[in-house]
């Protein structure tokens, strides 16, 4: 089976490189985007198997990108993992939902990231 294709989105080139390295190590194919608008466009054009989405993004923040995709019949099936700092997770507790499949809090550890990716991919297939 072809390896899953993952869209990784982060505005920091440094962090994007590191996430990319982890995913490549996990045997995944990786495409990237650096802001919310680019993420949306790439997601729509490329139909990735999963999206790793940072919350703090220029142009459109991660929450909005997530909601826009989850709102759309065509894309709502793509699993989305949001990468957040602690306070953002607290913000989630206000009861407003983005429809993301999972939240990973920073600092991100490679094993945890790969674990979450594998889990969501499996769920999406099953």
């Amino acid at each position, binding site marked *: 089976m072809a390896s899953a294709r993952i869209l990784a989105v982060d505005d920091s080139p*440094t962090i994007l490189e590191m996430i990319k390295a982890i995913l490549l*190590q996990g045997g995944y194919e990786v495409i990237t985007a650096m802001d919310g608008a680019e993420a949306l466009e790439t997601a729509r054009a490329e139909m990735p198997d999963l999206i790793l989405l940072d919350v703090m993004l220029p142009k459109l923040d991660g*929450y909005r990108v997530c909601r826009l995709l989850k709102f759309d019949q065509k894309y709502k099936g793509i699993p989305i993992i949001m990468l957040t700092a*602690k306070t953002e997770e607290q913000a989630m507790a*206000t009861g407003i939902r983005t429809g993301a499949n999972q939240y990973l809090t920073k*600092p*991100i*550890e490679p094993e945890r990231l790969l674990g979450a990716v594998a889990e969501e991919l499996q769920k999406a297939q099953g």
Partner: protein
Amino acid sequence: MVNDGSSLSKDLTPEQFKRFRDYIHQHSGIYLEESKSDSLRISLITRATRFGFAALDDYFKLLSTDESEFNELMNLVTINETSFFRFPAQFEALRQFIVPEIVEAKPETQRSFRVWSAGCSTGEEPYSASMTLLDSGLEGLGYKLEVFGTDVSTNALERAKAGVYPSRALLNIPHSVATRFFEPTPEGHRVADRARRLVDFQFHNLIKEPYPLGLMGNWDVIFCRNVTIYFKLESTRRVVDNFFNSLNPGGYLFIGHSETLTSISDRFEPVEVGGVFLYRKPQQRHTSFARVVEQRRGESRRPLAKQTDAAVRVGRRDRVRSAPPGAIVDERTGVAEKADIPGLIVSARKASEEGRSKDVLKIVEDVLAVDPSNAEVYLLAAYSHADSGDLQTALEECKRSIVLDPLSAAAHYVLGIIYQRQSEPERALQEFRRTIYLDADFVLAHFNMANIHRAKGVKLEACRSYENALRSLYRTPEGEWTWFLGGFRPDLLAQTCERSLLECRKKA
């Protein structure tokens, strides 16, 4: 002169048409095309006959002096066509996307959600908005919901307030909505009290400026659908401008699905939500602190003015209340004391790590009020702005920081990152070189240089930089640069370098 109307000429001459058209246009913004001449004629004759005028010119005299008669005529002229949940995708977008987005950005203390339906006709639109808000679950979170409907047609407003509709008005709405939000009465289907109590109606002419204060501000969403279609372009521009000013930052304007803001306003940001185009008022852009200080410098030639200004600015009550934890703020003046600055910077860094840009900027402002040449907080501001995508302001703050402290490796590194994100690799490389010149073991500068070289296809240079990064990393596994790792562990950076190095060597 007064007769039973039988002698009223039933013709509307082109001159008369123009006269009425221009008057209506001037006073309501509605511009009637030639093709509407006949329907205008019928409306005019209906009204003129009622007063027994022998000539339409006589009716014009009344019309131009009597505002209530003008409103009567407008009731006939405007077309009040509307329906519940007209273009349902917009209401779906409101419930599922707009409401959560706006609420999330609102400060904890501001628990209200306000919708204005401008040109609400007989009320279907504001009631639909009310039902949508009720279904969004906001009330459960303690939000106060308000919907306001305005129109120029007093007839339409009467019917809107009555809120009783014939069966055919409910034909196209989901059964569950019909059963939950309407109750049958002998007169028709009455909007249930729970949906009704959010809604208020008022007469308002969108063309008449200035708008009453109550309308000018604090709206989260404005509907103005299928209203401006008869307006002249210039009037529409003014109306849309007023909407822009009345919306909260981040608020949305809903227009008819066949309408567009192209060539009307470029102040809004078009957003596509599941096939629906909506218009968002952008969140405010920041002015750089560097620029504010420049301005203050200018003012300081009038020393007194500067002092009061600063005191007023920092001394505001809300500023005192919002002071970050750890800051000691003088009760009387609200000004932070110089000795607290290190503590403030620690909390700013923590806020920055946790992505709380707003808090960072607040602390920066507090520090600069006491110490306007603190290079470190300028750098923190730069980093925060870059984080929220405002690269231009970030650049200004960062340059300011470098002017104040030219030997800061971190400041050159941040400048490099900003250039990198602005797609200026050469400038970025130069700043990373400067960073390394100031701190040879600034691992991330080596790492980002390597990435830029690799992207340019300069494999040998890339390999060298990855090697340098690894060497520095082993030498000094922790340094000023670790802070910029965004919560990732340095060993992950080592793995990334090793992996990239292997790849580059393969291809080189």
